[in-house]
């Protein structure tokens, strides 16, 4: 792992009317790092991700990715620079077969530039990618309509869609929500493997036990503010974190 900064977020703030969804959040991320973002419901995790990936324009603050200012840029530009994100509610093109869902990112300028997304080859690339994520190529699963897949598969399809973009930074928004224990157990090693291969990952998650197994660094949000940042153990021992989680189960 190189010691190089890949993402820097400075004083990021987003107001929706009177509500401050994300309040003056700053952090930076080294290449190859695995950052977990936790916090109670409505603490601004998803908004933070939307701000970084350009789906929501920040009220103030600055986001730098690979030394380029990406604040408020269009989502597709940010995606083409190498930031790929999943959605909290698994989104897919329900009528298309699962593997055809990956055609869209494979068609992007980024993949064309990096090679591998040529005409006529995209279907194979897509099936290869799905095969890596547990959609066995010889089974019927990758060819079924996405809408007929169970929720866990949809979530993994979303992950595959992110990986199809060949990202430098992968941002996962509650990937494990709604997944069964066994599915989580199957998916976790895949993500760990991506990280070992050098991919920087940011993961917003509610399932703390699973998250802490893979991550070295955790950032805690509460009411849009960053209240802690450190290793899982030292973060969870902090009093304000426990207070924020009071009423919800403290795991790990």
């Amino acid at each position, binding site marked *: 792992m190189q010691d190089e900064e890949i993402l820097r977020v400075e004083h990021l703030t987003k107001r*929706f009317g009177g509500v401050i969804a994300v309040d003056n959040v700053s952090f930076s991320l080294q290449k190859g790092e695995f950052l977990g973002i936790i916090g109670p419901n409505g603490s601004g995790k998803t908004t933070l991700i939307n701000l970084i990936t350009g789906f*929501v324009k920040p009220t103030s603050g600055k986001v730098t990715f690979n030394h380029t200012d990406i604040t408020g840029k269009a*989502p597709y530009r940010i995606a083409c620079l190498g930031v790929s994100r999943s959605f909290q509610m698994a989104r897919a093109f329900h009528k298309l077969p699962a593997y055809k869902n990956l055609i869209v990112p494979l068609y992007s300028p980024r993949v064309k530039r990096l090679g591998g997304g040529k005409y006529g080859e995209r279907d194979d690339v897509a099936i290869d990618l799905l095969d890596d994520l547990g959609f066995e190529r010889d089974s019927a699963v990758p060819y079924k309509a996405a809408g007929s897949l169970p929720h866990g598969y949809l979530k993994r399809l979303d992950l595959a869609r992110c990986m199809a973009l060949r990202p430098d930074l992968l941002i996962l928004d509650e990937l494990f929500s709604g997944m069964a224990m066994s599915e989580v157990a199957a998916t976790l090693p895949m993500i760990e493997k991506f990280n070992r291969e050098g991919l920087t990952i940011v993961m917003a998650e509610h399932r703390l036990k699973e998250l802490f197994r893979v991550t070295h660094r955790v950032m805690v949000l509460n009411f849009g503010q960053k209240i802690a940042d450190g290793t899982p153990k030292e973060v969870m021992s902090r009093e304000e974190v426990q207070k924020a989680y009071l009423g919800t189960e403290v795991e790990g």
Partner: protein
Amino acid sequence: MEIVIYGITNSVTLALMAIGFSLTFGISGVPNFAHGAFYLLGGILTWIFINQLGIPYLFSAILSVIIVGLLGFGLYWGLLLRLRGLVVNEVIATLAAAIVIIEVLRYMGFSGFTYVLPEFIKGSVNIGKAWLDYQRIFLVGIGVALIIILYFFTHRTRVGLSFRAIAQNERTAISLGIDSDWTAALSLAFGSALAVVAGLAILPLGSIDTEVGYDILIYALAVGIVGGLESVPGIVLASFILGFCQILVATFFKAQWLTVVTLGAIVLILAVKPSGIFGKYKELEERV
């Protein structure tokens, strides 16, 4: 001076044409393309009531407002409710309804100088060099009154507040016990009734022509696009901008340039701020 007076009357006329459409759209998200058709239908119904059934003017005016309002309600309850959820179909259905109404009326020959609604108040007055008939003053009064009433209606009364709730978030509104279908149907009824009120105020200034059905739709949409749909201040502002520009152009250039102003304003606003001056219609990036 006359520019100011003509400008104001013209602007309020435009606002009157647009207000019903934007009310409906703002609440239920249904673009009621039958707006112009209802405007026309209201005028013709009133004419029939007065001239063929001999009902007094005021009474027949009220009657046609009610009838068209019910028609608007029926349009939602009978047709749109079956198509709800697919925006494509809603759009097509209201346009189709508009065409059916207007073309049937055209076929029945409700066009020309025989079809004139009497003025509510006859006579005219000279203000400076401007020559102003009382109907126009009446029209400005109606327009201003309607806008004020609408504002209080949506901000103070229970039905009005539930209208705004639906406009903001339909699902939450449903979970709070607001019947969204009922409210949307009501919004269509109110919008259609407003179209007739506008028609009754404006139509006495000229004769009824079925082409008006499409023209009103054009103006309503133009004002909505420039001002930002679903925003009452936007509608008012856009009406005044368009209204005064039209009068200025007509005074200093040629009267025919009126449509150029409208087209120019639309193209300009689309290039600069496509959601309109006061547009709350969220642009893609802003959706969460």
